[in-house]
């Protein structure tokens, strides 16, 4: 028998048993959707963790202070002993706010945040280069750059394509204040030019669009001016771990020494775990449901199928012929379910991605994307389940004699 004849006969059978197979396809599609979702959530979140949490400074940065808010100038010295620390900086030198202006783009004037960085402590650069400790007056900006206060709602149209600014200069201004009874009064304003050397993806690095990175020295120098005469807190420091995985170790070491600690930002693991567990549970339940329904169904209808098989045998079909036809029927069902499942999943994922994007939490940076491996697994499962379900009754039916098949007993 030729393969196209097999396919033709199998298609005929599927069409003639539409009702029964429709139910299989519905069940299988739902299983596939759930499989795609649990895998996609898991993978996308893992990706997110890999790309963001591990690289992101905020997840590696620990506040360290004396428990009773006592000023302790020797704090840095004590903390330096601990291993896996990339950098220790005074809290006030972590970041600063300045006004910014770009010559060519007149309408953009507002405040931006400057955060210290070097090649080890930096968001991943997607274009351009990293900043080193030796650099001066250069900056890394977000791919989607916005000059202004992000607490105000900003328009999408105000977003500047950061890539176009590489090589260009951003002029920043900041002031020295005198602190009078009625509040600070500007005594002098300074300007500085910062040349854009690289851009980072603020979507995957959970940066706000007005967050730019400059060298630690530049932040410190600007702060020296801005904070002149100000009471600069209680001397707390920030400890940046060399790697996200070492954060817990550093914290427990610090606490052992009696310091109070707090992570700058805590990734939401519970959410990640819950999504994972829900996905896997739902998929397992659905898998059991669809397999058992199909097995029960194929046993229920095995009398009818047995007669059809007996008929095929009487007109000269061999066991092999019959099993191949059935196998192709199952592949057809599997493929239809797979296609339906994928299309529905893509639609739902598109919707979810858009919904996620409107969140203000860190999950807004999770971008769901179906991986090739997920497609492969889904297609395998969708072909495997119906074949597995019909296997048992098929083997019994085919092994029986024609006479038994014919009577259907």
């Amino acid at each position, binding site marked *: 028998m*030729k393969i196209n*004849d097999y396919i033709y006969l199998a298609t005929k059978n599927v069409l003639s048993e539409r009702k029964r197979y429709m139910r299989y396809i519905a069940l299988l599609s739902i299983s596939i959707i759930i499989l795609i979702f649990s895998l996609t959530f898991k993978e996308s979140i893992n990706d997110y963790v890999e790309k963001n949490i591990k690289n992101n400074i905020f997840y590696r940065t620990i506040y360290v202070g004396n428990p009773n808010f006592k000023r302790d100038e020797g704090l840095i010295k004590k903390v330096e002993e601990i291993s896996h620390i990339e950098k220790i900086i005074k809290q006030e030198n972590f970041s600063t706010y300045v006004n910014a202006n770009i010559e060519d783009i007149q309408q953009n004037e507002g405040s931006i945040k400057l955060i210290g960085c070097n090649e080890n402590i930096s968001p991943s650069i997607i274009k351009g280069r990293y900043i080193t400790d030796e650099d001066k007056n250069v900056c890394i900006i977000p791919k989607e750059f916005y000059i202004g206060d992000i607490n105000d709602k900003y328009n999408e149209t105000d977003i500047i394509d950061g890539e176009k600014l590489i090589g260009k200069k951003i002029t920043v201004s900041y002031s020295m204040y005198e602190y009078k009874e009625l509040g600070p009064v500007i005594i002098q304003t300074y300007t500085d030019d910062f040349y854009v050397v690289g851009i980072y993806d603020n979507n995957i690095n959970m940066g706000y669009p007005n967050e730019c990175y400059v060298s630690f020295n530049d932040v410190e120098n600007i702060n020296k001016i801005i904070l002149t005469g100000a009471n600069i807190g209680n001397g707390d420091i920030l400890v940046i771990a060399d790697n996200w995985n070492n954060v817990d170790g550093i914290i427990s070491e610090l606490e052992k020494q009696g310091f109070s600690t707090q992570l700058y930002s805590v990734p939401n693991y519970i959410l990640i775990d819950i999504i994972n567990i829900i996905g896997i549970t739902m998929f397992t339940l659905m898998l059991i449901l669809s397999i058992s329904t199909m097995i029960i169904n194929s046993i229920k209808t095995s009398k009818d199928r047995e007669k059809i098989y007996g008929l095929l045998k009487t*007109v*000269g079909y*061999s066991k092999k012929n019959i099993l191949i036809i059935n196998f192709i029927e199952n592949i057809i069902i599997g493929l239809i379910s797979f296609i339906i499942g994928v299309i529905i999943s893509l639609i739902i994922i598109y919707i979810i991605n858009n919904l996620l994007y409107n969140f203000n939490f860190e999950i807004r940076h999770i971008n769901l994307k179906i991986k090739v491996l997920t497609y492969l697994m889904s297609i395998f499962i969708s072909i495997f389940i119906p074949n597995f379900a019909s296997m048992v009754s098929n083997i019994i039916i085919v092994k029986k*004699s*024609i*006479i038994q098949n014919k009577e259907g007993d």
Partner: protein
Amino acid sequence: MSEEINLKNGYKIYKKTSETIKALNNVDLKIEKGKFYAIMGHSGSGKSTLIQILGLLDSLTSGKLYIDGKETSNMKENDKTYIRMKKIGFVFQSFYLNPKLKAIENVMLPMYINKEIKGRERKQRAKDLLKSFNLSDRINHYPKELSGGEQQRVAIARALANNPEYILADEPTGNLDIDNEKIVLDLLKKLTREGKTVVVVSHNEIVKDYADEIYYMSNGEIRSKI
């Protein structure tokens, strides 16, 4: 190579816990080409058992069955399947059509496994067969839309799909009224004139009128009418 079905010392024994049934008891039978055979007998005499064995749907407990000179009882299942496809067409009392397929599709069904019938010839061949049985206007009907007589004619057309030498029919008129009975038997008779060999198993006396050879079965034993 002799062109005949030859059963020698055929036994078919069913062992149940309490009793042993000899459905075939030392049966010798030679089916020669181009003849119409009638095998008569009461219910339970072993007629169906015999015809199923002749058509390789069932196997002997002991004895030998030669089909066109080849001994079949030791054959592999695949070879038997091949002979069944090539040389034997079956007709059953209850028609045994696939209810989900149209008349023409039922007739085409055996052709898919026959390499000698090319893909594009199938449809025409099935049409021609149905036409010769006066079913031209029924080719796209499903079995449930056909009368018993029409269904049986479709079944005979299907039996002829791969142009077999032997047509084996088990009570082909059992579910039909007198008019249709005559149509079907005439048709089978016509086939013998075209060179086919027809074996009809029945307890219906009318079949004898069509037969070239008549056999009687009782209690698993066979004898020819003398």
